[in-house]
């Protein structure tokens, strides 16, 4: 089953894309800056950087196709061949690898019957080894269409790909309430919001572990100068506002007043119903 029914760049598709391209170009003082967004946009239509897509970008920006290709080939997120509906990336940079990322990659590779940068025959999943994705405190980490799946095991990762292949909705640990398709993701990366920013949690456990410990222990940053507690901007003149004329404040190890919100455990927003409105 092919997931990419390829349509030529003409008619309504072309009109729609030209409108989108104009919007993307308007975000920058120099339209060439829109090339990365436009390549994401091409992937949102074709599921990869197609030859027609390259020609489209070149025409919009007044570049040659060789110039566009030179850029497209530099970045790992741009695909030369039709991508699966889901890019499943297992972090195998050192920290995740050692914490179990290598084992997860091997398990998925075996289970799916594909290696790095290969797509399953049903067109559902492209498996990748990915580099550090800035979530090392949740190692081992897996990314599905660049949403976070934290603290994975070979079993949890296998379940995720099985559910993706059977078409069930799958929720990342930190992200929207369900993973979207590669094409839908590419459209967001092109700078066109999908209204899902309010879904999901604000932070996972590891993100707030220090914050919560500080609450438990009553640790805070030193209190600011009393006058800074005023929200009345008129009250502070230019020099004072920068705190340059103020005296010294309490030292680091001297506990100050309890933080706003007191000692409440602090919910990260987990469990709140993910709202679909933007």
């Amino acid at each position, binding site marked *: 089953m092919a997931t990419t029914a390829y349509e030529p760049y003409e008619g309504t598709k072309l009109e729609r894309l030209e409108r989108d391209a104009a919007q993307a170009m308007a975000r920058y*003082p*120099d339209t*060439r800056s*829109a090339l*990365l967004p436009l390549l*994401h946009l091409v992937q949102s239509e074709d599921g990869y*950087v197609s030859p027609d897509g390259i020609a489209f970008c070149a025409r919009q*920006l007044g570049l040659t196709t060789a110039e566009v290709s030179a*850029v497209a080939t530099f970045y*790992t997120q*741009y*695909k*030369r*061949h039709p991508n699966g509906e889901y890019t499943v990336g297992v972090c*195998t940079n*050192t920290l995740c*690898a*050692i914490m179990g990322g290598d084992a997860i990659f091997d398990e998925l590779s075996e289970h799916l*019957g*594909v290696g790095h*940068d290969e*797509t*399953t*025959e049903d067109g559902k999943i*492209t498996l990748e080894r990915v*580099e550090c994705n*800035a*979530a090392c405190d949740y190692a081992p980490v897996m*990314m599905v269409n*660049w949403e976070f799946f934290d603290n994975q*095991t070979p079993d949890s990762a296998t379940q995720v790909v099985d559910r993706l292949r059977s078409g069930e909705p799958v929720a990342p640990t*930190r992200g*929207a309430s369900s993973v979207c398709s590669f094409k839908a*993701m590419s459209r967001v990366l092109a700078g066109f919001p*999908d209204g899902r920013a*309010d879904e999901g949690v*604000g*932070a996972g456990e590891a*993100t707030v*572990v*220090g*914050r919560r410990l500080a609450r438990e222990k009553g*640790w*805070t*940053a*030193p209190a600011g100068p009393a006058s*800074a507690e005023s929200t009345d*901007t008129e009250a*502070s003149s*230019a020099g004072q*506002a*920068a*705190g340059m004329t*103020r*005296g010294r404040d309490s030292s*680091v*190890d001297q506990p100050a007043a309890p*933080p706003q919100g007191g000692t409440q455990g602090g919910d990260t*927003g987990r469990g709140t119903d993910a709202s679909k409105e*933007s």
Partner: protein
Amino acid sequence: MSTTLSPVLSDQWDAERSWTLATYEQGRGYRALRTALGMAPADVVTAVKDSGLRGRGGAGFPTGLKWSFLPQPDGGPRYLVVNADESEPGTCKDIPLMMATPHLLVEGVAITSFAIGCTHAFIYVRGEVLHVYRRLLRAVEEAYAAGHLGKNIHGSGFDLDVTVHAGAGAYICGEETALLDSLEGRRGQPRLKPPFPAVAGLYARPTVVNNVESIASVPSIIDRGVDWFRSMGTEKSAGFGIFSLSGHVERPGQYEAPLGITLRELLDMAGGVRGGHELKFWTPGGSSTPLFTAEHLDVPLDYESVGAAGSMLGTRALQIFDDSTCVVRAITRWAEFYAHESCGKCTPCREGTYWLKQILARIEHGRGTMEDLDTLLDVCDNILGRAFCALGDGATSTITSGIALFREEFEAHITGGACPFDPVASAKFDYTPRNRRADVHALSGVAAGTVGA
């Protein structure tokens, strides 16, 4: 008297719907922007200079000083570009900050732009964090609607547009001049310096490039003052920073503390090294910084002390590895990363990282020779100081320090003809490695052809 945590940036991370403008404004949200708009722009620059804030993106360059390097206004545009590319292995602070409290960054962007006379700012976020990009787009949208961005902000006459730009996967785009080329729609390759971005940056115009955490720290300095900021940290490394603990610790995560805290203190807070194990080695500032061991538990984590002890504070990315970990495996994997991410512009790095990767892989798998160790050091020596940008230098850090600290472990791989460690022992879960299974199948995938891979 031990150091305690000092949540400032992380203060609201555990709040209900922390990412929304409503939550942000229940705290101190956008108060500092109003204060700044009532000041002379030059006074905002002076305040940040006097605070002693140093860049949180790795190099530690004084932030206010960088801003003051911009030439006198000539009527043309000047730009602020926020480096939100966070990709240095081990570094995981900017991404959760933007996921939890994107407005902290947006407010910092508004204040900084006002200070340096910028009317169009950019946030360049790596493309591999979809939900963070959504949150940033939404935060900017909310800030426009509330009048914190756009035309005549809060009646001050100051206009500012903010564009959030998604990258497309390339570590080198975190290097500030490569980032600018990428933002201009080109291959992300570093530029020759000088000219520095302050003089000729984005579109060859005066540009400030700062890290997310640097910019997010600005509102607190304006709101609570220079003395308040300087009351934390040390004389030369003022203020607080986010310390990211990962790996073999009981409670990995983000710990915001005054600079100068030690790993011993942080480990205490994080429940210590994984039960039943000892600390073996760690990175103080990501994979581009020389390795430390248990000897360095009491080194104050500020720029000067870490430097004096032979490494770099970098991004405070504390990756902790216990005694179950093979240091050769760890270093080899990092070397593979640098070889993969080398942009190819200069020969010492392009060729050097390739050979480092090959030789290390050979040693890791028990096929190396004693001469290989000298070759490794020789190649490192030929990269260090000769590469066009800091990626090349960074590639050598863990190799030279690793051989200095653990030479006998490298030798054991060579003399024993195999890796003496069991990878299962260092993983978080139990499993049977693929090469120990009977039923290994052939793979049947279709090449996806990731272009830059």
